[in-house]
């Protein structure tokens, strides 16, 4: 086998160590690529070119494959997200109970379509296929907190609260796989959909 040296991460940023740790725990096995990308997105908030290049070089996986995986799965996003994230569940149960008007309301208040971030960078609007809380339909996940049986007015109000109060969320990245203990509110992920190049076939 060729001599190979793992690239060094950019200095002065401890976040790279987190990504390194995940890669090391999987023995830099290419099989663990998705696990590593989960950690990277959780750490940086999104997957930019620098991250993908670093992961590719460290795990000795072609960059094209890393890009392919990052764009295939809805969960990964290549763009930075807003300060707040509003996920509207569009699963069947939520759909039957009016998820589309919920989404329309969110799009109206934020001015951003599903998969986009509002112009002021405050709110990212995303849709989820189904978060499995069908008993509480329609459901939205607001900054990681699942809110069940939410009405159009309720969701509008919550988003207006975000936009009127200056960034109190500290620019926290959208949660990836949570590391929080399970006591307390359900650690829900925003499920990123649509902003990536997953649908290249439709664009071409």
């Amino acid at each position, binding site marked *: 086998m060729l001599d190979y040296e793992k690239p060094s991460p950019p200095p002065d940023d401890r976040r790279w160590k987190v990504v390194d740790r995940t890669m090391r725990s999987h023995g830099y096995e290419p099989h663990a690529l998705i696990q590593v990308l989960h950690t990277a997105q959780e750490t940086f908030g999104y997957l930019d070119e620098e991250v993908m290049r670093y992961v590719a070089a460290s795990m000795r996986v072609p960059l094209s494959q890393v890009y392919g995986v990052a764009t295939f799965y809805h969960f990964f996003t290549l763009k930075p997200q807003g300060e707040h994230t509003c996920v509207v569940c569009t699963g069947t149960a939520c759909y039957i109970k009016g998820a589309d008007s919920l989404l329309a309301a969110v799009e109206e208040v934020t001015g951003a379509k599903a998969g986009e971030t509002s112009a002021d960078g405050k709110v990212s609007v995303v849709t989820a296929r189904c978060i499995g809380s069908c008993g509480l339909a329609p459901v939205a996940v607001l900054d990681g907190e699942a809110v069940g049986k939410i009405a159009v007015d309720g969701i509008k109000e919550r988003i207006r609260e975000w936009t009127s109060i200056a960034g109190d969320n500290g620019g926290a990245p959208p949660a990836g796989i949570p590391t929080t203990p399970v006591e307390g509110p359900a650690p829900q992920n925003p*499920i990123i959909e649509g902003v990536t190049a997953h649908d290249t076939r439709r664009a071409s």
Partner: protein
Amino acid sequence: MTREELRELREAEQKRKQKYKHTVNVCMASGCISLRSDKVKEALDKEIAGRGLEDEVLVKRVGCVGLCSKGPIALAESTRIVYDGITPEDAKTIIKNLDKAPSKALRESMEAPFFRRQQKIVLEHSGLIDPERIEDYIAVGGYEPMLDALIDISPAEIINQIARSGLRGRGGAGYPTGLKWSTVAKADGSGDKYVICNADEGDPGAYMDRSIMESTPHQMIEGMVIGAYAVGANHGFIYVRAEYPLAIERLKTAIKQAEKMGLLGSNIGGTRFSFDIQLRYGAGAYVTGEETALISSVEGNRGLPRPRPPFPAERGLRGRPTLINNVETFANIAPIIRNGGDWFASIGTEKSKGTKVFSLAGKINTVGLIEVPLGITLREIIYELGGGIPEGHTFKAVQTGGPSGGTIPEEHLDLPVDYESLMKIGSIMGSGGMIIMDETSCMVDVAKYFMGFSKSEACGKCIPCRVGTVQMHGILERITDGAATMDDLALLEDLCDLARHASLCGLGQSAPNPVLSTLHYFRDEYIAHIEEKRCPAGVCKLQHTGEYEEILEVRE
């Protein structure tokens, strides 16, 4: 931990529990947690501390009780009373009334058909044990069937019992589990074999597997170990949706606990058998529920399916024989080993044995999770267990099988629920999601919704699915916009036929099902949209937007 030590621990745990006069179980599955059942538990704990009842009353975190829409839920075990919709302020009333007739306002009777009509095998311990304490699972006899199997029973005899039980895959396809196990067991044993648990519960509206993982993760792990022993595998993976963070946390905890006790890992229970389990997260792709796509994803690649054969049982993960079963299938294994295959086969119908967990959602009074013997009718499920349709509305259809399934109208409500019957009327059992719809749902719109789902989830590998779903969705859009002709309807049917027969994997093959079944039972609604420019349910706007024409031009 040896078998004797396990039994001692069970007895010790049972004694520990008997010490308490009352046990109050608080549901801490994700539905109830999002309704802040954690605050309810805190309040109950505080109330008990305040009254100095710590040695008498145990407040326990448990998994799903089943009444998901009425949370937060608490269950007083000694009196078998369910409290629903409780707030932290109710803690006082609940504790005060533990010995007396409880407050009526909060009470949900365990004698209600919703509870009485259920028969629980998979969910037997759900809502009764703490999912994050392995001791709780051991106290109800957990891991004993596994050690019995590893010590006393040969792999061939285990497979024989599973085959006798008649258990079929609970992920949707209904392939006989015993047959699958014996294929993997017979496959080339010169290298590693693998066991994968498919926990990529993708059907929207289905949450059985999430609930099992959040409520009784050990039961599923135990089933995986027994399966691994039967087929001769030493490594396992659980491929779980990243959208289920709580399930992931509980699985992690469960694996760690089982490893620590020597019930997972090297030399399980002091035997020569070793088996480890790693978690792999999905990343939001529906197609990865298909087994070959799932394997590709576990290997760190894009989740693309490949043609079968070879089946994963012969060439799966890393090219090696791989046993893939779904969460609910594995959760059925330990009870079968404990009670024997014949016991399981005595439940259900001739070809569909045992019980099935269904999630009820949509326009129904009781939204939640139920486990019923196969062969029960849809009418019993919807009207007796589910309490019927909310007042003022009428039943229109029930959708089973998600984007791969179909809609079933009133006329078939008396059909027994089993794999064959549902298939015969154009739907499938699927993973167990049941969405009930009333007269306010437009069937064309519902078909469009599912086609939109399949379109965005198509992986792009084969043309019939990639292009077919886009075109079918386009036609459905034109119908709901009032811009379609009867020729479009004929074209839609042609495309359905094509996608069904020419697609590579189950996603494309079954994507036309929601269209075909609504066309079969509700054709008049399609015609009303096309010829009268009218939506009978009043859902579709029937406004010509003109956008689709541009799209078609670009494609040409």
